[in-house]
Protein backbone atom coordinates (compact mmCIF):
# COMPACT_ATOMS: atom_id res chain seq x y z
CA UNK A 1 0.00 0.00 0.00
CA UNK A 2 2.65 2.44 1.10
CA UNK A 3 4.88 1.79 -1.86
CA UNK A 4 1.97 2.50 -4.16
CA UNK A 5 1.35 5.87 -2.56
CA UNK A 6 4.96 6.95 -2.58
CA UNK A 7 5.47 7.55 -6.30
CA UNK A 8 2.39 9.73 -6.35
CA UNK A 9 3.58 11.85 -3.49
CA UNK A 10 7.01 12.47 -4.90
CA UNK A 11 5.79 12.92 -8.44
CA UNK A 12 6.47 16.35 -9.91
CA UNK A 13 3.58 18.53 -10.95
CA UNK A 14 2.95 18.43 -14.69
CA UNK A 15 4.50 21.23 -16.77
CA UNK A 16 1.04 22.52 -17.63
CA UNK A 17 0.11 22.80 -13.97
CA UNK A 18 3.40 24.57 -13.23
CA UNK A 19 2.76 26.96 -16.10
CA UNK A 20 -0.70 27.75 -14.75
CA UNK A 21 0.64 28.41 -11.25
CA UNK A 22 3.25 30.67 -12.85
CA UNK A 23 0.37 32.48 -14.57
CA UNK A 24 -1.38 32.93 -11.22
CA UNK A 25 1.74 34.49 -9.67
CA UNK A 26 2.24 36.70 -12.72
CA UNK A 27 -1.35 37.92 -12.48
CA UNK A 28 -0.95 38.55 -8.76
CA UNK A 29 2.20 40.59 -9.44
CA UNK A 30 0.50 42.70 -12.11
CA UNK A 31 -2.61 43.33 -10.03
CA UNK A 32 -0.76 44.27 -6.84
CA UNK A 33 1.59 46.56 -8.78
CA UNK A 34 -1.32 48.30 -10.45
CA UNK A 35 -3.04 48.68 -7.11
CA UNK A 36 -0.01 50.29 -5.51
CA UNK A 37 0.90 52.53 -8.43
CA UNK A 38 -2.57 53.75 -9.33
CA UNK A 39 -4.47 53.71 -6.05
CA UNK A 40 -1.67 54.54 -3.62
CA UNK A 41 1.36 56.33 -5.02
CA UNK A 42 -0.16 58.23 -7.93
CA UNK A 43 -2.92 59.44 -5.68
CA UNK A 44 -0.85 60.52 -2.69
CA UNK A 45 2.46 61.66 -4.16
CA UNK A 46 2.39 65.12 -5.75
CA UNK A 47 5.59 65.52 -7.74
CA UNK A 48 7.70 68.51 -6.68
CA UNK A 49 5.22 69.45 -3.94
CA UNK A 50 6.69 68.25 -0.66
CA UNK A 51 4.03 69.79 1.56
CA UNK A 52 1.06 68.34 -0.34
CA UNK A 53 2.72 64.91 -0.52
CA UNK A 54 3.42 64.95 3.21
CA UNK A 55 -0.13 66.00 4.04
CA UNK A 56 -1.56 63.27 1.79
CA UNK A 57 0.61 60.52 3.22
CA UNK A 58 -0.08 61.41 6.83
CA UNK A 59 -3.82 61.83 6.19
CA UNK A 60 -3.98 58.39 4.51
CA UNK A 61 -1.34 56.61 6.52
CA UNK A 62 -3.04 53.22 6.43
CA UNK A 63 -3.44 53.35 2.64
CA UNK A 64 0.27 54.12 2.46
CA UNK A 65 0.99 51.10 4.67
CA UNK A 66 -1.19 48.91 2.45
CA UNK A 67 0.83 50.15 -0.48
CA UNK A 68 3.90 48.77 1.24
CA UNK A 69 2.15 45.41 1.70
CA UNK A 70 1.15 45.38 -1.97
CA UNK A 71 4.74 46.10 -3.02
CA UNK A 72 6.13 43.25 -0.97
CA UNK A 73 3.49 40.80 -2.20
CA UNK A 74 4.31 41.78 -5.78
CA UNK A 75 8.05 41.19 -5.31
CA UNK A 76 7.54 37.91 -3.46
CA UNK A 77 5.16 36.54 -6.09
CA UNK A 78 7.54 37.62 -8.83
CA UNK A 79 10.28 35.58 -7.16
CA UNK A 80 7.91 32.57 -7.10
CA UNK A 81 7.15 33.16 -10.78
CA UNK A 82 10.88 33.33 -11.52
CA UNK A 83 11.56 29.96 -9.89
CA UNK A 84 8.68 28.33 -11.81
CA UNK A 85 9.77 29.81 -15.15
CA UNK A 86 13.33 28.60 -14.50
CA UNK A 87 12.02 25.04 -14.27
CA UNK A 88 9.79 25.52 -17.26
CA UNK A 89 12.53 26.89 -19.54
CA UNK A 90 15.36 24.66 -18.32
CA UNK A 91 14.84 22.14 -21.15
CA UNK A 92 15.20 24.91 -23.72
CA UNK A 93 18.58 26.13 -22.53
CA UNK A 94 19.71 25.70 -18.97
CA UNK A 95 22.43 28.37 -19.00
CA UNK A 96 20.19 31.07 -20.48
CA UNK A 97 17.43 30.13 -18.08
CA UNK A 98 19.85 30.49 -15.15
CA UNK A 99 21.16 33.86 -16.36
CA UNK A 100 17.58 35.10 -16.65
CA UNK A 101 16.75 33.83 -13.19
CA UNK A 102 19.73 35.68 -11.71
CA UNK A 103 18.60 38.90 -13.43
CA UNK A 104 15.11 38.56 -12.03
CA UNK A 105 16.43 37.88 -8.53
CA UNK A 106 18.62 40.99 -8.63
CA UNK A 107 15.69 43.07 -9.89
CA UNK A 108 13.27 41.68 -7.29
CA UNK A 109 15.63 42.20 -4.36
CA UNK A 110 16.56 45.73 -5.49
CA UNK A 111 12.89 46.62 -5.85
CA UNK A 112 12.06 45.06 -2.49
CA UNK A 113 14.83 47.17 -0.94
CA UNK A 114 13.30 50.23 -2.57
CA UNK A 115 10.39 49.73 -0.16
CA UNK A 116 12.77 50.99 2.50
CA UNK A 117 12.39 54.43 0.91
CA UNK A 118 8.62 53.98 0.72
CA UNK A 119 8.60 53.68 4.51
CA UNK A 120 11.05 56.55 5.13
CA UNK A 121 8.42 59.35 4.88
CA UNK A 122 6.40 57.74 7.70
CA UNK A 123 9.45 57.97 9.96
CA UNK A 124 10.40 61.50 8.89
CA UNK A 125 6.85 62.84 9.18
CA UNK A 126 6.01 60.96 12.38
CA UNK A 127 6.69 63.99 14.61
CA UNK A 128 9.25 62.23 16.78
CA UNK A 129 10.89 64.54 19.33
CA UNK A 130 14.43 63.96 18.05
CA UNK A 131 13.46 65.22 14.59
CA UNK A 132 12.43 68.66 15.89
CA UNK A 133 15.93 69.92 15.08
CA UNK A 134 14.65 70.15 11.50
CA UNK A 135 11.87 72.45 10.37
CA UNK A 136 8.64 70.88 9.11
CA UNK A 137 9.46 72.03 5.60
CA UNK A 138 12.87 70.37 5.74
CA UNK A 139 11.39 67.08 6.91
CA UNK A 140 8.79 67.21 4.14
CA UNK A 141 11.49 67.89 1.56
CA UNK A 142 13.58 64.99 2.87
CA UNK A 143 10.53 62.73 2.61
CA UNK A 144 10.16 63.66 -1.04
CA UNK A 145 13.90 63.07 -1.63
CA UNK A 146 13.49 59.54 -0.27
CA UNK A 147 10.51 58.98 -2.56
CA UNK A 148 12.70 60.06 -5.48
CA UNK A 149 15.27 57.49 -4.38
CA UNK A 150 12.55 54.85 -4.28
CA UNK A 151 11.51 55.68 -7.82
CA UNK A 152 15.14 55.56 -8.98
CA UNK A 153 15.76 52.16 -7.37
CA UNK A 154 12.46 50.83 -8.69
CA UNK A 155 12.54 52.21 -12.23
CA UNK A 156 16.08 53.13 -13.18
CA UNK A 157 17.67 50.05 -11.63
CA UNK A 158 14.95 47.45 -11.01
CA UNK A 159 13.15 47.79 -14.33
CA UNK A 160 16.44 47.67 -16.28
CA UNK A 161 17.24 44.29 -14.77
CA UNK A 162 13.66 43.14 -15.34
CA UNK A 163 14.19 44.22 -18.91
CA UNK A 164 17.13 41.86 -19.31
CA UNK A 165 15.01 39.13 -17.73
CA UNK A 166 12.02 39.70 -20.04
CA UNK A 167 14.38 39.77 -23.03
CA UNK A 168 15.83 36.39 -22.05
CA UNK A 169 12.36 34.95 -21.41
CA UNK A 170 11.41 36.14 -24.89
CA UNK A 171 14.46 34.43 -26.42
CA UNK A 172 13.72 31.24 -24.46
CA UNK A 173 10.10 31.24 -25.68
CA UNK A 174 11.30 31.71 -29.27
CA UNK A 175 13.65 28.74 -28.92
CA UNK A 176 11.07 26.56 -27.19
CA UNK A 177 8.61 24.26 -28.90
CA UNK A 178 5.91 24.48 -26.28
CA UNK A 179 4.87 28.16 -26.34
CA UNK A 180 3.76 30.30 -29.32
CA UNK A 181 6.54 32.37 -30.90
CA UNK A 182 4.55 35.58 -30.92
CA UNK A 183 4.72 35.60 -27.11
CA UNK A 184 8.49 35.41 -27.39
CA UNK A 185 8.58 38.39 -29.75
CA UNK A 186 6.31 40.40 -27.46
CA UNK A 187 8.36 39.58 -24.35
CA UNK A 188 11.61 40.46 -26.10
CA UNK A 189 10.13 43.83 -27.10
CA UNK A 190 8.87 44.30 -23.53
CA UNK A 191 12.38 43.59 -22.28
CA UNK A 192 14.00 46.03 -24.70
CA UNK A 193 11.57 48.76 -23.63
CA UNK A 194 12.49 48.24 -19.99
CA UNK A 195 16.21 48.28 -20.79
CA UNK A 196 15.72 51.82 -22.18
CA UNK A 197 15.24 52.90 -18.54
CA UNK A 198 19.05 53.02 -18.51
CA UNK A 199 18.58 56.51 -19.93
CA UNK A 200 16.09 58.57 -17.88
CA UNK A 201 15.95 61.44 -20.43
CA UNK A 202 15.02 58.98 -23.20
CA UNK A 203 12.32 57.46 -20.98
CA UNK A 204 10.87 60.89 -20.22
CA UNK A 205 10.56 61.66 -23.93
CA UNK A 206 8.93 58.30 -24.69
CA UNK A 207 6.38 58.37 -21.86
CA UNK A 208 3.79 56.81 -21.80
CA UNK A 209 4.39 54.83 -25.02
CA UNK A 210 7.41 53.11 -23.53
CA UNK A 211 5.05 51.04 -21.39
CA UNK A 212 2.97 49.70 -24.33
CA UNK A 213 5.17 46.69 -25.10
CA UNK A 214 5.78 45.74 -21.46
CA UNK A 215 2.02 45.88 -20.84
CA UNK A 216 1.00 43.94 -23.95
CA UNK A 217 3.81 41.37 -23.65
CA UNK A 218 3.37 40.56 -20.00
CA UNK A 219 -0.43 40.48 -20.05
CA UNK A 220 -0.45 38.17 -23.10
CA UNK A 221 2.08 35.81 -21.51
CA UNK A 222 0.11 35.80 -18.25
CA UNK A 223 -3.16 35.00 -19.98
CA UNK A 224 -1.57 32.30 -22.12
CA UNK A 225 0.02 30.64 -19.10
CA UNK A 226 -3.24 30.81 -17.16
CA UNK A 227 -5.55 29.58 -19.90
CA UNK A 228 -3.40 27.32 -22.07
CA UNK A 229 -0.41 26.51 -19.87
CA UNK A 230 2.21 24.88 -22.08
CA UNK A 231 2.03 22.09 -24.64
CA UNK A 232 2.81 19.23 -22.27
CA UNK A 233 3.84 16.67 -24.85
CA UNK A 234 6.25 18.99 -26.64
CA UNK A 235 7.70 20.16 -23.33
CA UNK A 236 8.46 16.58 -22.40
CA UNK A 237 9.98 15.93 -25.84
CA UNK A 238 12.26 18.93 -25.49
CA UNK A 239 13.11 17.98 -21.90
CA UNK A 240 14.11 14.46 -22.84
CA UNK A 241 16.29 15.74 -25.69
CA UNK A 242 17.98 18.16 -23.31
CA UNK A 243 18.67 15.14 -21.09
CA UNK A 244 16.72 16.33 -18.09
Amino acid sequence: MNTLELPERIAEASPRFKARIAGVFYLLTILTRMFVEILVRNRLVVSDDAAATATNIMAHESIWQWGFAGDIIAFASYIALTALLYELFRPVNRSLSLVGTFFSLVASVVQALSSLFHLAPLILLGRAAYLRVFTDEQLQALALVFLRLRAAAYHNIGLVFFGFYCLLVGILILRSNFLPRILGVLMALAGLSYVLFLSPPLVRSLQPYILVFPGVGQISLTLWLLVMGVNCQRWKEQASIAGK
Partner: protein
Amino acid sequence: MRTAGMMGRAAEASPRSKARITGVFYLVTILTGVFAQGFVSGRLVVDGDAAATAANILTHGSLFQLGFAVYLIEMACNVTMTALFYDLLKPAGRSVSLLAAFLGLAGCVIKTFSRVFFIAPLFVLGGAHYLNVFSLEQLQALALLFLKVNDRGAAIALVFFGFYALLTGYLIVRSNFLPRILGVLGILGGLGWLSFLYVPLGYRLFPYTAALALLGALSLVLWLLVVGVNEQRWREQASAAGNWRS
Protein backbone atom coordinates in the same frame (compact mmCIF):
# COMPACT_ATOMS: atom_id res chain seq x y z
CA MET B 1 13.69 16.06 -39.77
CA ARG B 2 11.64 17.67 -37.08
CA THR B 3 13.48 16.03 -34.22
CA ALA B 4 16.80 16.96 -35.79
CA GLY B 5 15.70 20.58 -35.95
CA MET B 6 14.51 20.44 -32.39
CA MET B 7 17.78 19.03 -31.20
CA GLY B 8 19.64 21.84 -32.88
CA ARG B 9 17.44 24.41 -31.23
CA ALA B 10 17.61 22.83 -27.81
CA ALA B 11 21.31 22.04 -27.88
CA GLU B 12 23.56 23.56 -25.22
CA ALA B 13 26.70 25.38 -26.24
CA SER B 14 29.99 23.46 -26.02
CA PRO B 15 32.16 23.99 -22.91
CA ARG B 16 34.73 25.88 -24.95
CA SER B 17 32.27 28.35 -26.42
CA LYS B 18 30.67 28.72 -22.99
CA ALA B 19 34.11 29.55 -21.61
CA ARG B 20 34.63 32.15 -24.35
CA ILE B 21 31.23 33.76 -23.73
CA THR B 22 32.00 33.84 -20.00
CA GLY B 23 35.30 35.52 -20.85
CA VAL B 24 33.56 38.16 -22.95
CA PHE B 25 31.13 39.07 -20.14
CA TYR B 26 33.97 39.04 -17.61
CA LEU B 27 36.00 41.40 -19.81
CA VAL B 28 33.10 43.82 -20.29
CA THR B 29 32.50 43.75 -16.51
CA ILE B 30 36.10 44.82 -15.92
CA LEU B 31 36.18 47.47 -18.65
CA THR B 32 32.87 49.09 -17.69
CA GLY B 33 33.83 49.01 -14.01
CA VAL B 34 37.17 50.70 -14.70
CA PHE B 35 35.50 53.29 -16.94
CA ALA B 36 32.72 54.23 -14.49
CA GLN B 37 35.03 54.24 -11.48
CA GLY B 38 38.09 55.83 -13.07
CA PHE B 39 36.69 58.20 -15.66
CA VAL B 40 33.40 59.27 -14.11
CA SER B 41 33.36 58.75 -10.35
CA GLY B 42 37.08 59.32 -9.87
CA ARG B 43 37.10 62.47 -11.99
CA LEU B 44 33.95 64.17 -10.74
CA VAL B 45 33.91 63.26 -7.05
CA VAL B 46 36.39 65.30 -5.00
CA ASP B 47 36.89 63.59 -1.68
CA GLY B 48 36.01 65.86 1.21
CA ASP B 49 34.98 68.79 -0.99
CA ALA B 50 31.20 68.93 -1.35
CA ALA B 51 31.12 72.21 -3.28
CA ALA B 52 33.67 71.11 -5.89
CA THR B 53 31.94 67.73 -6.27
CA ALA B 54 28.56 69.40 -6.75
CA ALA B 55 29.99 71.83 -9.30
CA ASN B 56 31.60 68.96 -11.22
CA ILE B 57 28.42 66.91 -11.26
CA LEU B 58 26.30 69.82 -12.46
CA THR B 59 28.70 70.88 -15.22
CA HIS B 60 29.14 67.28 -16.40
CA GLY B 61 25.57 66.12 -15.82
CA SER B 62 25.37 63.87 -18.86
CA LEU B 63 28.74 62.26 -18.12
CA PHE B 64 27.48 61.55 -14.60
CA GLN B 65 24.27 60.08 -16.02
CA LEU B 66 26.34 57.97 -18.41
CA GLY B 67 28.44 56.76 -15.48
CA PHE B 68 25.27 55.49 -13.81
CA ALA B 69 24.19 53.60 -16.94
CA VAL B 70 27.67 52.11 -17.34
CA TYR B 71 27.66 51.01 -13.70
CA LEU B 72 24.41 49.13 -14.38
CA ILE B 73 25.79 47.52 -17.53
CA GLU B 74 28.81 46.48 -15.45
CA MET B 75 26.50 44.74 -12.98
CA ALA B 76 24.40 43.14 -15.71
CA CYS B 77 27.57 41.62 -17.19
CA ASN B 78 28.73 40.59 -13.72
CA VAL B 79 25.41 38.77 -13.10
CA THR B 80 25.66 37.01 -16.48
CA MET B 81 29.26 36.07 -15.87
CA THR B 82 28.38 34.65 -12.43
CA ALA B 83 25.67 32.37 -13.84
CA LEU B 84 27.86 31.17 -16.73
CA PHE B 85 30.91 30.59 -14.56
CA TYR B 86 28.79 28.44 -12.24
CA ASP B 87 28.06 26.13 -15.15
CA LEU B 88 31.66 26.06 -16.28
CA LEU B 89 33.13 25.22 -12.87
CA LYS B 90 30.41 22.76 -11.86
CA PRO B 91 32.43 19.67 -12.88
CA ALA B 92 35.19 20.72 -10.46
CA GLY B 93 32.76 20.74 -7.52
CA ARG B 94 29.08 21.26 -7.78
CA SER B 95 28.29 22.42 -4.24
CA VAL B 96 31.23 24.79 -4.03
CA SER B 97 30.34 26.21 -7.43
CA LEU B 98 26.76 26.81 -6.30
CA LEU B 99 27.97 28.44 -3.08
CA ALA B 100 30.31 30.68 -5.07
CA ALA B 101 27.49 31.69 -7.43
CA PHE B 102 25.21 32.60 -4.51
CA LEU B 103 27.93 34.71 -2.86
CA GLY B 104 28.64 36.39 -6.19
CA LEU B 105 24.95 37.05 -6.73
CA ALA B 106 24.67 38.59 -3.24
CA GLY B 107 27.60 40.87 -4.09
CA CYS B 108 25.89 41.89 -7.33
CA VAL B 109 22.61 42.71 -5.57
CA ILE B 110 24.36 44.84 -2.94
CA LYS B 111 26.44 46.72 -5.49
CA THR B 112 23.50 47.23 -7.83
CA PHE B 113 21.31 48.59 -5.05
CA SER B 114 24.01 50.91 -3.73
CA ARG B 115 24.06 52.62 -7.15
CA VAL B 116 20.82 54.36 -6.24
CA PHE B 117 22.97 56.51 -3.93
CA PHE B 118 25.24 57.29 -6.86
CA ILE B 119 22.40 58.83 -8.85
CA ALA B 120 20.89 60.55 -5.77
CA PRO B 121 23.11 63.70 -6.04
CA LEU B 122 21.31 64.57 -9.28
CA PHE B 123 18.04 64.81 -7.33
CA VAL B 124 19.30 66.95 -4.47
CA LEU B 125 21.41 69.20 -6.70
CA GLY B 126 18.78 69.47 -9.45
CA GLY B 127 17.40 72.76 -8.16
CA ALA B 128 13.88 71.52 -7.44
CA HIS B 129 11.78 74.21 -5.81
CA TYR B 130 10.85 72.12 -2.78
CA LEU B 131 14.53 71.83 -1.80
CA ASN B 132 14.86 75.58 -1.22
CA VAL B 133 14.24 74.90 2.47
CA PHE B 134 17.86 73.75 2.65
CA SER B 135 20.87 75.98 2.08
CA LEU B 136 23.01 75.32 -0.98
CA GLU B 137 25.85 74.09 1.27
CA GLN B 138 23.51 71.63 3.00
CA LEU B 139 22.35 70.17 -0.31
CA GLN B 140 25.93 69.85 -1.52
CA ALA B 141 26.88 68.09 1.72
CA LEU B 142 23.88 65.79 1.36
CA ALA B 143 24.97 64.94 -2.19
CA LEU B 144 28.48 64.01 -1.08
CA LEU B 145 27.00 62.01 1.80
CA PHE B 146 24.96 59.95 -0.69
CA LEU B 147 28.07 59.35 -2.79
CA LYS B 148 29.87 58.08 0.31
CA VAL B 149 27.00 55.68 1.05
CA ASN B 150 27.25 54.41 -2.53
CA ASP B 151 30.96 53.86 -2.00
CA ARG B 152 30.47 51.91 1.23
CA GLY B 153 27.79 49.79 -0.47
CA ALA B 154 30.33 48.85 -3.11
CA ALA B 155 32.81 48.05 -0.31
CA ILE B 156 30.35 45.54 1.18
CA ALA B 157 29.99 43.96 -2.25
CA LEU B 158 33.78 43.71 -2.56
CA VAL B 159 33.91 41.43 0.48
CA PHE B 160 31.37 39.14 -1.16
CA PHE B 161 33.35 39.24 -4.40
CA GLY B 162 36.39 38.33 -2.31
CA PHE B 163 34.70 35.17 -1.04
CA TYR B 164 33.58 34.52 -4.60
CA ALA B 165 37.13 34.81 -5.94
CA LEU B 166 38.46 32.52 -3.17
CA LEU B 167 35.97 29.78 -4.03
CA THR B 168 36.27 30.04 -7.79
CA GLY B 169 40.08 30.11 -7.43
CA TYR B 170 39.89 26.95 -5.35
CA LEU B 171 37.70 25.31 -8.02
CA ILE B 172 40.13 26.29 -10.79
CA VAL B 173 43.01 24.76 -8.80
CA ARG B 174 41.00 21.58 -8.39
CA SER B 175 39.90 21.48 -12.01
CA ASN B 176 41.73 19.59 -14.74
CA PHE B 177 40.61 21.88 -17.52
CA LEU B 178 42.11 25.24 -16.49
CA PRO B 179 45.72 26.03 -15.46
CA ARG B 180 46.27 26.04 -11.70
CA ILE B 181 48.18 29.32 -11.68
CA LEU B 182 44.95 31.11 -12.67
CA GLY B 183 43.29 29.68 -9.56
CA VAL B 184 46.19 30.75 -7.35
CA LEU B 185 46.01 34.30 -8.70
CA GLY B 186 42.25 34.31 -8.10
CA ILE B 187 42.72 33.20 -4.49
CA LEU B 188 45.31 35.94 -3.87
CA GLY B 189 42.99 38.58 -5.31
CA GLY B 190 40.13 37.25 -3.21
CA LEU B 191 42.21 37.47 -0.04
CA GLY B 192 43.00 41.05 -0.99
CA TRP B 193 39.32 42.01 -1.23
CA LEU B 194 38.70 40.53 2.22
CA SER B 195 40.71 43.50 3.56
CA PHE B 196 37.42 45.41 3.20
CA LEU B 197 36.17 43.50 6.24
CA TYR B 198 37.95 46.31 8.07
CA VAL B 199 36.97 49.19 5.81
CA PRO B 200 39.87 51.59 6.56
CA LEU B 201 42.36 48.81 5.84
CA GLY B 202 40.53 48.00 2.62
CA TYR B 203 40.81 51.58 1.39
CA ARG B 204 44.49 51.83 2.42
CA LEU B 205 45.40 48.64 0.54
CA PHE B 206 43.06 49.37 -2.37
CA PRO B 207 45.68 50.25 -5.03
CA TYR B 208 47.62 47.04 -4.34
CA THR B 209 44.54 44.85 -4.02
CA ALA B 210 43.05 46.26 -7.20
CA ALA B 211 46.33 45.70 -9.11
CA LEU B 212 46.58 42.13 -7.84
CA ALA B 213 42.93 41.35 -8.56
CA LEU B 214 43.14 42.98 -11.97
CA LEU B 215 46.18 40.86 -12.84
CA GLY B 216 44.34 37.68 -11.83
CA ALA B 217 41.11 38.65 -13.54
CA LEU B 218 42.78 39.73 -16.78
CA SER B 219 44.88 36.56 -17.00
CA LEU B 220 41.76 34.47 -16.47
CA VAL B 221 39.81 36.50 -19.04
CA LEU B 222 42.62 36.24 -21.56
CA TRP B 223 42.86 32.49 -21.06
CA LEU B 224 39.09 32.03 -21.37
CA LEU B 225 38.98 34.15 -24.53
CA VAL B 226 41.99 32.70 -26.29
CA VAL B 227 42.17 29.11 -25.10
CA GLY B 228 38.76 28.54 -23.54
CA VAL B 229 38.85 25.32 -21.53
CA ASN B 230 40.33 21.94 -22.35
CA GLU B 231 37.13 20.46 -23.66
CA GLN B 232 38.04 16.81 -23.39
CA ARG B 233 39.23 17.12 -19.80
CA TRP B 234 36.15 19.18 -18.95
CA ARG B 235 33.89 16.41 -20.21
CA GLU B 236 35.96 13.78 -18.39
CA GLN B 237 35.73 15.62 -15.09
CA ALA B 238 32.04 16.31 -15.65
CA SER B 239 31.20 12.69 -16.32
CA ALA B 240 33.42 11.57 -13.41
CA ALA B 241 31.45 13.92 -11.19
CA GLY B 242 28.32 12.41 -12.70
CA ASN B 243 26.73 15.78 -13.18
CA TRP B 244 27.27 16.44 -16.82
CA ARG B 245 23.57 16.32 -17.54
CA SER B 246 22.07 17.61 -14.35
